[in-house]
């Protein structure tokens, strides 16, 4: 009986807090530059740090801000990441934030 009660209690609590957090995540959503997400999708996503940033997302943010060149991704070179990033930046230049 104790096992059942503890399982039930923790399940209910977890579900309750999860719902609360999901709701607040929706409520406090931070508007991001859509280009960041696109560049992150293009990058290999292995967070190797060869570009000199903490991870792929940090690198993408720096590119969008114009603080980094687009040719820094070494592992993505064979797949032509540089050209893809260039394309994204050219395509969405007019709605620069």
């Amino acid at each position, binding site marked *: 009986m104790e096992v059942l009660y503890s399982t039930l*209690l*923790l399940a209910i609590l977890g579900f309750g807090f999860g719902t609360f957090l999901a709701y607040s995540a929706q409520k406090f*959503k931070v508007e991001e530059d859509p280009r960041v997400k696109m560049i992150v999708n293009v990058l290999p996503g292995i967070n190797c740090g060869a570009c000199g940033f903490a991870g792929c997302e940090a690198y993408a943010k720096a590119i969008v801000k114009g603080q980094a060149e687009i040719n820094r991704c070494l592992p993505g070179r064979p797949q032509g990441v540089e050209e893809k990033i260039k394309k994204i930046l050219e395509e969405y230049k007019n709605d620069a934030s």
Partner: protein
Amino acid sequence: MKIFLLFFSAIFVNNFVLARFLGICPFLGVSKRLETATGMGIAVTFVMTVSAAISWFLDKLLISTGLEFLRTIVFILVIASFVQFVELFLKKTSPDLYEALGIFLPLITTNCAILGMVLLNSLMKLSFVEAIFHALGSGLGFALALVIFAGIREKLDLYDLPESFKGTAIALITAGLLSLAFMGFQGMVKL
């Protein structure tokens, strides 16, 4: 009367950082600059107060169902959820502070000062109002220790220290001396 005793003893006499030695990690990590120290103090105070309120009810529930052994895990669940909430809130309202706190914000989750405070509440069998004031006092005591320490550390940066003492070494020595100073309050409040 007991409320005031609890409140002030949590700030000065049983200061969580300097007398009970809980929450040392953020105490050393976030005290390099006064701004981050203040922000961290406020965040911890908020999480402490809310966690104390919610876990008081959960504690009563656990006692009534005879599941006291779940205390720790349930309290950690409450604390972790609220830290996550604070993180979302800060990201939205003050990105600068969010960036400055960095990894130490999620680390509030595993800040033993908060879990210790909540467990102490249930050990001391405090009533709801007492628990809230105890939590508020503990949070403010943590913030006070952090702010004092950050002020000292900012001044220390300007001094001509021996090379081997720079950085964390002198910070640890300073923390010890600060703790000694707070030992002067010992025994003033009997709870």
